[in-house]
């Protein structure tokens, strides 16, 4: 299942990339599972998606909870809590 990943702000800097296309195993079907999947890459990903990291997610540009489903072709963004205004 192919999805497009996007990373913003401190997360983008930590990972050294603003995003990528990934082909996910079929069991990675929720935001929480994707987060776990990315954490298992270790290194910067292990730290960025580790237990205590405050990471928010959006699927197709809508803010979603960790339990939200992911489908093929989705745009999934991860970012720290927002600080605009």
């Amino acid at each position: 299942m192919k999805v497009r990943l996007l990373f913003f702000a401190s997360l983008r800097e930590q990972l050294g990339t603003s995003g990528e296309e990934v082909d996910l195993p079929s069991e990675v079907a929720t935001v929480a599972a994707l987060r776990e999947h990315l954490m298992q890459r270790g290194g910067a990903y292990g730290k960025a998606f580790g237990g205590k990291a405050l990471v928010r997610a959006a699927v197709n540009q809508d803010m979603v909870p960790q339990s939200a489903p992911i489908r093929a072709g989705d745009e999934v963004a991860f970012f720290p809590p927002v600080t605009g205004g």
Partner: protein
Amino acid sequence: MKISVQRDDFDAGAEIRKLAGDGSVGAIASFVGLVRDVPMTLEHYAGMTEREITKIAHEAAKRWSVIDVTVIHRFGELQPADQIVLVVVAGSHRGEAFAACEFIMDYLKTRAPFWKKEHRAGSAEWVEAKASDDAAAERWIATGKKPKA
């Protein structure tokens, strides 16, 4: 309704005058947020930012009798005293306009995907989200109106 996410500065006075309307508007409430103390870079999630702000403005229009709304939010490099954000709400009466304007700002701070990076001498650091901003947005949930302090 006008929602704009832009690099360029805005003219708050001109935007307020545009909402004066044809005689049905009795009150215009506005808020301008400025850069305080240190230069900063504002990053955003292009596309989602406009969507989130539009959703917030529609939510405000559902809760209060609002005639028109303008929200402009800047991104990119900003210096102290630069304008960051403008919210203008036109309504029949001031109470509704004030409330809707404050609601939009409180939600924008916790929902719209912007991130500030402050540039101090020799270092640059991402601003951390404040729990007080979450609390400011959440106080609208229970009653739909702002509780007394």
